[in-house]
């Protein structure tokens, strides 16, 4: 009896294996499990065996039945699934046609860079402030320790409105305006437009700077290095090598230019870095005691550092732009790339 059952199972398995279509599977179901099916017939004949063997054979019989049922169901389900896919595919669309997008506008690259820098410094506790773009000579020069006829005035050509009114040549006057109004501690950042009469592939008569100032008790040159290092690594990447080298600004002393390893040639020397391997990124220094005196801060009591950088230069390096004038042409084909 059991032997016959096993034969039956083998036969069913073999037939399941070669069946493909829905009809074939349905025929198999009738053949084995239908009212007159082979397995059904077997179960019906259980009464003819010895009672002690009945449970064993019965169980086996049910197991086989379940196994066949499961296999048949799976096969039929799979066939049904394929059939639905076929139907859905007949309703296909061309997914490569362009989407119906709501075009999002682009922020000007200078604004993007400015925003990135402001965010870094805001996290360091700096507040964003503004100052006038048309300035008194006093704020733009004299209070910054650049008296009339001082050689340092050569460093910045100036647009004049009147004898004592200029288009600001840098964002540094904001330092003075803030310190005049606020007692230390001070942590400010001031982005904005500045003006110098110059126009060629690397100069435009208007451009952008960001000025930073931190004044508190016992601020050191080491702190200047720390804050600017952290800033530049966030802006250009953790692996950015940088160097601080002595320089001169009338309103800071000691002063430092900060260079980063050339992003184009990694220091090997190229056209962008004039073969030096370094790129000048920002000017900085400890606030000169003379400047503190001009705003009635006691240089023996507080110290601080200031820094300034040109946004166009940063944007040019970050985006690989070689002509500064492009920023102000506002050509849609340019703006769309950012």
């Amino acid at each position, binding site marked *: 009896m059991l032997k016959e059952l096993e034969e039956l199972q083998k036969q069913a398995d073999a037939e399941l294996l070669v069946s493909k279509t829905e009809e074939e599977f349905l025929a198999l179901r009738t053949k084995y499990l239908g009212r007159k099916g082979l397995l059904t017939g077997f179960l019906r004949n259980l009464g003819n065996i010895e009672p002690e063997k009945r449970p064993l054979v019965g169980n086996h019989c049910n197991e086989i039945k379940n196994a066949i049922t499961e296999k048949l169901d799976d096969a039929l389900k799979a066939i049904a699934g394929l059939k639905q896919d076929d139907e859905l595919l007949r309703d296909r669309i061309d997914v490569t046609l362009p989407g*119906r*997008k*709501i*075009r*999002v*506008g*682009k*922020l*000007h690259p*200078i*604004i993007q860079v400015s925003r990135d820098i402001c965010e870094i410094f805001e996290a*360091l*506790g*700096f507040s964003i402030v*503004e100052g*006038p*773009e*048309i300035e*008194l000579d006093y704020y733009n020069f004299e209070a910054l320790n650049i008296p009339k*006829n001082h050689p340092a005035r050569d460093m910045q050509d100036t*647009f*004049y*409105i*009147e004898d004592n009114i200029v288009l600001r040549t840098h964002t540094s006057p904001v330092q003075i305006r803030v310190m005049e109004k606020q007692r230390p*501690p001070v*942590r400010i950042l001031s982005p904005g*437009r500045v*003006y110098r*009469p110059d126009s060629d592939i690397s100069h*435009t*008569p208007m451009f952008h700077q960001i000025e930073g100032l*931190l004044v*508190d008790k*016992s601020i*050191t*040159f*080491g*702190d200047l*290095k720390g804050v600017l*290092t952290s800033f530049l690594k966030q802006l250009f990447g953790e692996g950015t090598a940088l160097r*601080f*080298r*002595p320089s*001169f600004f009338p309103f800071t*002393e*000691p*002063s*430092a230019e900060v260079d980063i390893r050339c992003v184009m040639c990694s220091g090997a020397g190229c056209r962008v870095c*004039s*073969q*030096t391997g370094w790129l000048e990124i920002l000017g900085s220094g*400890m606030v*000169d*005691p003379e400047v503190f005196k001009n705003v009635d801060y006691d240089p023996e009591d507080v110290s601080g550092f200031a820094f300034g950088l040109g946004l166009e230069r940063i944007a040019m390096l970050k985006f690989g732009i070689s002509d500064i004038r492009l*920023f102000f*042409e*506002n*050509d*849609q084909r340019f*703006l769309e790339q950012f």
Partner: protein
Amino acid sequence: MLASLKWLKEYVEIRISPAELVDKLTMVGLEVESMRERSPSFRNIVVAKILSVKHHPQADKCFLCEVTTGDTTYPVVCGAGNIRSGNVVPFAKVGAVIPGGYTIRSSKIRGEISEGMLCSEEELGIGDDSTGIMILPGNLPIGKDLSEALDLTDVVLDIAITPNRSDCLSIIGIAREIAAITGSNFRYPDINVTENDEDIKKITSVHILDPDLCPRYSARIIKNVAIGPSPLWMRQRLEAVGLRAINNIVDVTNYVMMELGQPLHAFDFRFLEEGRIVVRRPLSGETFVSLDEKERILETDTLMICDGVKPVAIAGIMGGLNSEVKEDTETILLESAYFDPISTRKSSKWLGMNTDAAFRFGRGVDPEGVVNASARAAQLMAEISGGTVCKGCIDEYPQKVKKAKDIPLRVKRVNDILGTDIKDAEIVKILKSLNMKICEDTNGHYRATPPTYRVDIEREIDLIEEVARFHGYDRIPVTLPPGSSVTVTKDHKEIVRKRLREILQGSGYSEIITFSFISPGSLDMLGLPAGDDRRKIVKIRNPLTEDQSVMRTTLVSNLLETMKKNANAGCFDLKVFEIGRVFFHQREGELPKDKNMFGCLISGMLDNNIWLSKTSTDFYDLKGCVENIFDGLKILNGEFRSDYRETFLHPGKSCGIYVDKRCIGFLGEVHPDVLLKMDLKNKVYVSEIDMELLADCFTGDVCYKELPRFPSVVRDVAFVVGEDLEADKMLNIARDMGKELLEKVSVFDVYSGKSITQGNKSVGLRFIYRAPERTLTDDEVSQVHSGIVKHIVDLTGAKIRGEGN
């Protein structure tokens, strides 16, 4: 400042490589911008000796020579008449390359074989002399490569000298820094003047009438000079540092200026009337012709060097044509002086003459170096021009130049500022290496006296900088400042700007940045009337171009310019905005008023997907953008009023933008006349809003309203009204009346054409009714609704569409 490495090596030993030197100089603040190798542009030219010279049998003007390079003898045909047997000369062998890239070949000149060429200075590119073959010193080794024998290779550094470091505008200045960096010894040039016994005081005198502008003036007399070219070594050095050789006297003044940093001037003594020097301000109306042959009227404060009668030089700036050294000059009066830096700068600026001398005087020369430089120049002039130096030096020094002395220095202060722990000994060592005199007062307190050439060092902080430079910026530890006790404040206007950018970006507008200056003509282009506030322009005194000569008072002209530029580039679909300041002239001597404005422009097609539908932008696209701004900033009471006029906007398609009855800006289609003037074909829509007023309207407050729990009832009605009736009028009537149950009323359709009588339009309004606490009944709604509709009909004369119209 160009510095020749060879020249530097005369005063300081340099054992490091040029690349290392560049790095070290840069790291003490003498930024080397470039390094260039100087080598002659010839190859294979050697020192040779002429064994014999005889006339070419076939050519009158040529000579046949035999020259030897030691091991070989060559026949050479030569056209120059200055060669003699026994001369040592530069010889270009067959295969040699001379400047210009010519390769020397073996040739036959009128039947005679020539195996090379003898060269002149000019042919070799090492001098201007083309009159004959260059005759070399007889002691040069025969056969040696010429460039080696004459030591013609050099490295030239271009160093950016910051305005405070006038002491480094000379070769010895840079050599001193190198000595301080490397610890090598610094050698000051040997100055050793041989004087004759003719006393200078018997020949000339110096009177300083304006010692405030000229604290010190010294003079020497050199007699019997023979004017001619300088020796090659001097010409080479001058050329290396970017100066042109002129003659042996002028060259010496330039040479010593480059060497010691002291500008000098040589007068031809025979042209000095009364044989004396008077230093004074010019007489009124006095004119002067300087060496550049330009005549100038002199300003009161332009200090002049004069003889007994007339000006002969502009002090510290340029000599005069009337006393210039000429070919037949025999006696030189040599000037070495200290002129007031500020006055020199002013004069040089005023005259527009930025000479090397003016540059150095303007930044401050060493007041104690004046006499030394004079001696150095006199010595060199005697050496190379055959002149004799008269005994003594006139040194008028009526007004001592202020010099820093005993500047207090606290070691604790050094370390407090730098964040370091530098010990006393290192500080003292650094300052001493810079030739400062140091005294110790008490523990950790010192006094330092800088050398007189360091005019930049006056205060403790200046000393601290020196310590930092030579301790090394890279050795100062990197620290972070202690946590801030300042609260970060967010500027209200900055918050509004940021929001605005987000809204605009989301609405598909790209940000532009245009120059803050415009052409004065652009206000005429906009047709702004004379009394308009935007005519109060701020003018730039020294603009780069007329197009950029006034500060803008509106963003509109720049927006239109941007449209124009893009249209020219073939881009007609534009959605852009700008945030920037405008400026208004106030009173003379007062800062102009400035404020931030927002401007935006839209033109062309809305969608750039070719396969989807395209529509042209119109007024309502731009208005939608402004409405988006109101939504985004939570401004609830914005209004658009048609009774607003701008000369540059279409009067029927523009409006003022109001919040709480206050006008904050405008929007509309650009007037066809303006478009015509700008040659723009497509319609353009612009808007400008005062950012300060907009910021005033923004509170940032958001108050959540419970979501409705009961259903609403919607009723649509189409009103037929006169075509001039503004929809706002109907909406306002409805809103005023239906305060309680009317949740919202809006326009859902505007139609005119078929089935609507001419001169009318149909405006479909959708009314939504809702009560917060209950479900409204149909009767209740009908009662309120019909009241509202009737009211609209009564007040506007509207007819209900479909009701027997």
